[in-house]
């Protein structure tokens, strides 16, 4: 997108994020989720849009981050094994400092654990190309949920009740709203910067032709791993935040929701237009708004509608909104249209 135009969008979005929770307190949770959704779409686009590696299992890092932060937070005041085995019955005492210290450490840990797991997994999955990569990552996410569901130390299928926020529910809402907001904004800013560097060019080269990129001397495996680690880092943090907002971690529905959040991120990015910076944001806003407004009127058919949306999106509207705009008004995006014939 045209740089000047892109800059013009920053201010209203930031203002919207800062003002909304005070103007409409009842929508606070929805908008906090919206920021998480934007983060989802942005991080998916690093791999799917910019690098051409379509992952169906990025939600794996969301779950890993959620569990990492839960473990770190609980470690501040109790033995993790004991705490999870008691299923929330265990009487635990913790001071406010312990809680916030745990929260901060947990969020940091979640990002790094997720990024580290991306680096480690990168060694095994990055030899996979195209559809094999998509299926392999899908398997990874499914395996993650199933394995966590059998691991006693982190509560197995029973899940973990998160430490309770020491102040009022309102204060909790506000705190996590702004944490989500900051996470999304930092993600956006980081990606915006990263796409302008050599790294951005390298991953675009990988998307366009991996063999040629390799032949040009680009260390493709290294770039792919870094790209995945970046997206995993932010996804892990979003997992930590979401786990705390929900207040209860369960392996299949909350931590590794492969067929809900895991697919939402793909659907949102494709809707907005993959491979662009604002596309995922636009897609996330549209998708989330549509979903929140219409979801309750579908009476059980909402998942059918979601599947239909994906099919229609993929089959008929592959380039997404941003892609369509770029095709229609290339000048606005600073794309020079090469001589379409002298008649024009």
């Amino acid at each position, binding site marked *: 997108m045209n740089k000047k135009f892109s800059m013009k969008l920053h201010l209203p979005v930031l203002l919207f994020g800062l003002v909304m929770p005070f103007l409409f307190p009842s929508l606070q949770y929805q908008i906090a989720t919206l920021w998480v959704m934007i983060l989802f779409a942005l991080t998916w686009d690093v791999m799917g849009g910019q690098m051409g590696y379509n992952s169906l299992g990025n939600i794996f890092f969301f779950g890993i981050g959620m569990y990492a932060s839960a473990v770190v937070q609980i470690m501040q005041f109790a033995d993790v094994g004991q705490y999870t085995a008691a299923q929330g019955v265990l009487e635990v005492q913790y001071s406010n400092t312990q809680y916030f210290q745990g929260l901060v450490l947990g969020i940091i840990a979640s990002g790094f654990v997720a990024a580290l797991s991306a680096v480690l997994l990168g060694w095994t999955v990055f030899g996979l190309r195209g559809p094999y990569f998509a*299926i*392999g990552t899908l398997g990874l996410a499914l395996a993650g949920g199933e394995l966590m*569901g059998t691991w006693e130390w982190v509560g197995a299928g029973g899940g973990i009740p998160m430490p309770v926020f020491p102040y009022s529910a309102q204060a909790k809402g506000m705190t996590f709203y702004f944490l989500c907001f900051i996470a999304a904004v930092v993600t956006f800013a980081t990606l915006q910067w990263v796409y302008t560097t050599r790294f951005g060019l390298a991953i675009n080269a990988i998307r366009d032709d991996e063999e040629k990129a390799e032949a040009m001397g680009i260390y493709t495996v290294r770039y792919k791993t870094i790209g995945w680690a970046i997206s995993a880092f932010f996804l892990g943090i979003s997992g930590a935040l979401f786990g705390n907002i929900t207040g209860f971690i369960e392996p299949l529905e909350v931590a590794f929701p492969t067929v809900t959040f895991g697919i939402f991120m793909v659907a949102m990015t494709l809707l907005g237009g993959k491979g662009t910076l604002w596309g995922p944001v636009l897609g996330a806003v549209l998708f989330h708004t549509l979903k929140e407004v219409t979801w309750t009127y579908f009476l059980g058919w909402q998942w059918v509608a979601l*599947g239909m949306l994906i099919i229609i999106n*993929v089959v008929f509207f592959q380039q997404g909104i941003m892609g369509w705009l770029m095709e229609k008004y290339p000048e606005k995006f600073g794309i020079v249209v090469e001589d379409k014939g002298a008649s024009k």
Partner: protein
Amino acid sequence: MFDNIMVLVAAPVFNIQLLLDGLFIGATYALAAYGLALVWGVMNVKNLAQGDFVIMGGYIAWWLGNHGIHPLWGVPVAIVFMFGFGWVVYVTIIRRVIDKELFTSLLATFGLAIVLAQVLNLLFGPEVQTANAGFPILSLFDNAVTLAQIKIIALILCALLALAVVLFMKKSRMGQAIRATAQDARAARVMGIDTDKVYAFTFSLNAAICGAAGALISMIWVIQPFYGISHSIRSFVIVTAAGFGNLPGVIMAGLGLGVMENYGGFVLGAEFQQVVVVGLLLIVLVWRQFQQHKLRRAVI
């Protein structure tokens, strides 16, 4: 876990039970995987709705069983119904994504998988179902091993269906056209083969095969609207391990997967059965990657 292994060592007769169960269910996996190999090899479409076609076939047999018709009739009914359904899916979705990049077809079929699973859920509810075929259960080895007669019937039907498909591919005009298209679609078009029709037929044939496999699975095992994805993954494991156009390989991989799943479920505990399937997928993919690594040296 070690206790379970000790049980197997101490009482070898349990091995026979696990082996038999694995082989019978594995035969249906192989059948569904053969359909995937067909579509993958001929059209280069990775169908993630494969498992949901299987589950649909299962619900057809179950539904017939509930309405006083023997669920074995579900096999032919599922073949006919799913053939038509496959044609509709091809015309509405697959035809439009077939020449786009590979991820498109993968995602489109994934969307289809979500739709099908949810529609089945809304129609029949989320309970685990099984179609009661009403055949007696045989006991072998002093009642240590039980064997339902329906499993033997299902195995025979599986083999007959596979044979029928192979003969069809070898002998009939349409089968020859399908094989020609798989070899070189452009050349086939030049020779006057209507490749669009061939693709439609191949996809419908795949859906019909899945439907038959599903009808059998509903009688010898269980079905549930959301089990589709694990059946899809099983098919992918089998085809990736065997490669397409390799029918003996698909059969061996299918039977092997069934056996390994059963053993894994027994040794590690029933909650690990899903993990075994997904774990095998990852292992097969990584193993394939090592094989390819020998062919090309990546810059690291």
